[in-house]
């Protein structure tokens, strides 16, 4: 009896203590479930920091020139409305951009992405221009576990190995010219194609894809070659193309320089196909060829229209000081902005893992439903350009397809 009494007291004490402990522990657990781990760090966040590099010098500077401003216009637009609301931390935070010049060089880009992560402590990245520079920059994303919204990057080298930290808005390089081939097939009157690309992974894949789509549409590829990146004289290539008697000549070459030499020499050597498709025809190319560019086909990363997204995009470009056709890759940038906005709203916080997951779940439509931006299992997106044709020194959209086919005029060898 007495022992039981003593034990009772002990047990009672223990029970009380244990109970207290359990209660306290439960309360703590419940509390932790409500407040996320590191809650105090998140609570201290005052802005969304996004890091990126742009090719402000080096050989891509002509393509990227106004994009620093464009990015800022986008961020300012968001911040004018107070910022983006992150529901998990119940805060609306403005965007701050940190941008460096990657000098069109992969090692420089990597260096700066490392710095963006380690020193500037960005929340996530926007990728650099072009596939091979992005390929280098990705190492920083993986190492520092920060998601990278790839921008102008889509060649297969980056997608062979799975990598959770990156996704692009673009569809695979091979599908780049889907709509251009569609247009040509629908217009009809052309059967044979001569294709040339610069010897670089992106260009090669875009050309391969073009050729495959041409064949699938029941047409024929009569010439398909790759030329080294330093090629300045295309005379022999042009002669070989002439020999194969193509209805359509297609050249895929970034940056444009190769295009200028090729077009001038094609003109001079009497290569007069029904149509000429120049994958990239920015201002320097149009200026250098003058009237000869009339009715040359190309592709733009947007098309003319009046939807709210169109208006927003055109307004952004105007504020950044350019017309969209002059720097058509702005269209890719716009899609990237939308992807980021959507991902942040979905994630509701700046936790890298949350943002990363949201990046992979992108699913929204643009331009009155003309295109749906989604991310597939490998990390590819769904954006590829819309066909355009140069008229009076400016590209004109050939979209929607029915309208495009009507506006489209064959070049018919007129230089």
């Amino acid at each position: 009896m007495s022992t039981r009494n003593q034990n009772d007291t002990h047990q009672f004490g223990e029970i009380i203590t244990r109970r207290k402990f359990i209660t306290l522990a439960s309360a703590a657990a419940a509390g932790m479930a409500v407040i996320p781990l590191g809650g105090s760090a998140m609570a201290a966040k005052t802005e969304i920091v996004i890091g990126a590099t742009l090719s402000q010098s080096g050989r891509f500077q002509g393509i990227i020139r106004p994009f620093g401003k464009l990015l800022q216009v986008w961020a300012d637009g968001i911040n004018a409305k107070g910022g983006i609301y992150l529901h998990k931390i119940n805060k609306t935070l403005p965007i701050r951009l940190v941008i460096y010049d990657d000098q069109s060089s992969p090692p420089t880009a990597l260096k700066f992405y490392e710095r963006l992560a380690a020193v500037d402590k960005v929340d996530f990245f926007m990728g650099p221009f072009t596939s091979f520079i992005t390929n280098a920059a990705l190492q920083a994303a993986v190492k520092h576990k920060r998601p990278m919204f790839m921008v102008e990057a889509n060649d297969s080298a980056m997608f062979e190995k799975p990598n959770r930290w990156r996704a692009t808005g673009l569809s695979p390089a091979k599908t780049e010219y889907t709509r251009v081939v569609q247009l040509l097939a629908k217009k009809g009157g052309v059967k044979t194609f001569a294709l040339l690309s610069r010897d670089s992974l992106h260009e090669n894949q875009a050309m391969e894809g073009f050729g495959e789509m041409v064949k699938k549409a029941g047409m024929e590829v009569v010439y398909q070659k790759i030329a080294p990146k330093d090629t300045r004289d295309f005379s022999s290539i042009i002669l070989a193309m002439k020999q194969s008697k193509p209805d359509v000549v297609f050249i895929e070459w970034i940056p444009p320089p190769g295009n200028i030499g090729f077009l001038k020499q094609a003109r001079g050597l009497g290569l007069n196909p029904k149509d000429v498709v120049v994958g990239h025809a920015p201002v320097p190319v149009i200026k250098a060829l003058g009237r000869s560019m009339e009715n040359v086909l190309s592709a733009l990363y947007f098309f003319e229209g009046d939807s709210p997204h169109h208006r927003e995009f055109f307004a952004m470009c105007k504020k950044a000081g350019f017309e969209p056709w002059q720097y058509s890759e702005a269209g890719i940038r716009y899609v990237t902005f939308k992807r980021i906005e959507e991902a942040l709203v979905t994630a509701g916080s700046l936790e890298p893992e949350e943002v990363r997951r949201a990046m992979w779940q992108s699913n929204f439509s643009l331009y009155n439903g003309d295109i749906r931006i989604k991310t597939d299992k490998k990390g590819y997106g769904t954006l590829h350009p819309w066909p355009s044709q140069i008229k009076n020194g400016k590209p004109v959209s050939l979209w929607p397809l029915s309208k495009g086919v009507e506006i489209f005029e064959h070049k018919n060898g007129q230089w």
Partner: protein
Amino acid sequence: MEFTTLVQVIINGVLLGGVYALAAFGLSLIFGVSGVLNLAHGEFLMVGGMAVFLLFDALQNVWYVNPFILVAVVAPLFFLVGLVFEKALIQPLTQRKEHVRLASAVLVTLGAALVIEDVADFASRGSQYEKSVDFFIPSLVIGEIYLETNKLVMFGLVLILIVALFIFLRFTYVGLAVQAVTQNRRGALLVGVNTTRINAIAFGIGTALAAVAGGFEVINSMVAPNIGLPLTLKYLCIVVMGGLGSFLGVALGGVIIGLGESFLGFFYPAWSQTVAYLLLVTVLLIRPKGLFGK
């Protein structure tokens, strides 16, 4: 290959080779006279092309000038540029011993090349990276053969310049001194030839020729800050293949490489840019001093 196509490929190759030879001459002259391998040669070509473009672009709205005329205006300016470059960067090198001189020259001119490229890159911000003039005269068509007028004019100018150079070397006193310095620098010094002045003249002429070649590029294709070094490499190939110090060798080397690129471009374009080096190795295996080397 059809016959007319074959003829066309050959013509293209010769025309191409002629323009290659022009810039290579400049490099060969500089090397033959001063013993300096000027790795900044391609940069002068690029800057010369840029100068022609800037003039053309600036005058375009006021007065449409034939870019070939602008080339004739720019070339003498670049003679001066060559003189200044030589005085500023190369003369200090000639004080050094011969075996050190070549290595120093390579390093100094390479450094200069990189700096010039950087400056051109920087200067391109705010405008376009690649520069090309919109100038086209319809081709001369003979049957099925198209002769690009631009290239014909260029080839003609190249011939004129080569003849002018020949006359200069053979029939003027300064030309004789240039030949003497090329063949025996010590010997020339001993008989009182001011080799410093002759070096400067060689640099001036060489640079002017490079600028002319640059003007051709901007008409026929385009120039951009990054084209300099790959071109220098190709011209070096031609100079070494032709035999150091031989102008006939350079002319022949240029045409051989032009033809090589032309034929390979027709069948295997992926190899067209390496053909220069392949031919170089082949020639050197047969004749180690180059085609007409001494």
